[in-house]
């Protein structure tokens, strides 16, 4: 049972992969945009920051679920 809980928690944390891909794509696009229009760097940076925070939320949800699994199904 304990090992199954651990596997479940590990799978839940896999959601971090999606967030990683998303943040990677967002950052690459942001770098492209800054290279194309360096004068808009401020606006691009703030938009990127917000997007990253939102994308990161999915990873955080995975983390929360993993912790819940560990703590509640122990």
């Amino acid at each position, binding site marked *: 049972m304990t090992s199954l809980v651990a596997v479940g928690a590990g799978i839940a944390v896999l959601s971090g992969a999606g967030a990683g891909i998303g943040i990677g794509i967002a950052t690459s696009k942001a770098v492209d945009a800054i290279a194309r229009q360096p004068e808009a760097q401020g606006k691009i940076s703030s938009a990127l*920051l*917000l997007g990253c*925070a*939102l994308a*990161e*939320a999915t990873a*955080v*949800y995975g*983390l*929360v679920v993993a*912790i819940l699994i560990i*703590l509640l199904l122990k």
Partner: protein
Amino acid sequence: MEAFVESLLEELECNVVFEFSIWNGGRVQVLESVVITWVIMAILIILSKILVRNLTIENPGKKQIALETGIGYLYDFFCGLMGEHGKRYVPYMITVVIYIGVANIIGLFGMKPPTKDMNVTIALALMSIVLIEFAGIRQKGVKGWAKSFAEPVAIVAPINVLEIFIRPLSLCMRLFGNVLGAFVVMELIKLCIPVIVPAVFSCYFDIFDGLIQAYVFVFLTSLFIKEAIE
């Protein structure tokens, strides 16, 4: 390892500071997060009382310039986000961003961040959604507010209604999860390497992440308010 898990759980747990009885015989437990919120409130109020003293129109001191720059920046930021009609909600947004910011980095001073307790984030998210819907009703009237659920087409109305519950849930869980995640990661780092390295990571997880989450929380709330009053 067992000891570490025990201590981690101990750290994660929000202790009951004191409890008292109410009229119907029930017991009310006051959690640590509420008490720490009181501490934060006291700090903020005393600080603002001290800082706001001796404000002058001409020849402001360095302290006053810094204060004005900070508050002016926040004010302009929220004004820009919410527009002319949303001006009345700016002080609340500033209060929330200051509170969440302080709450997230108070871990540096040895206290448990109140935002690590789900009750606090639930309360914040509830207030946000109440404010959003209140702003919508105030701007459009009850009828216009009810009608706005059927936009752009009537078929999406259930999704729009569902959004009332999804938005606070998302706000609440995002803040809670980020703070909790940062907290757990920091605890693990402290377990592995107890010197120097935690200080570096603390800059990211406690300060940067904490402030970013405060920013994201108020940013999204203002965005929703702007959407509601448009």
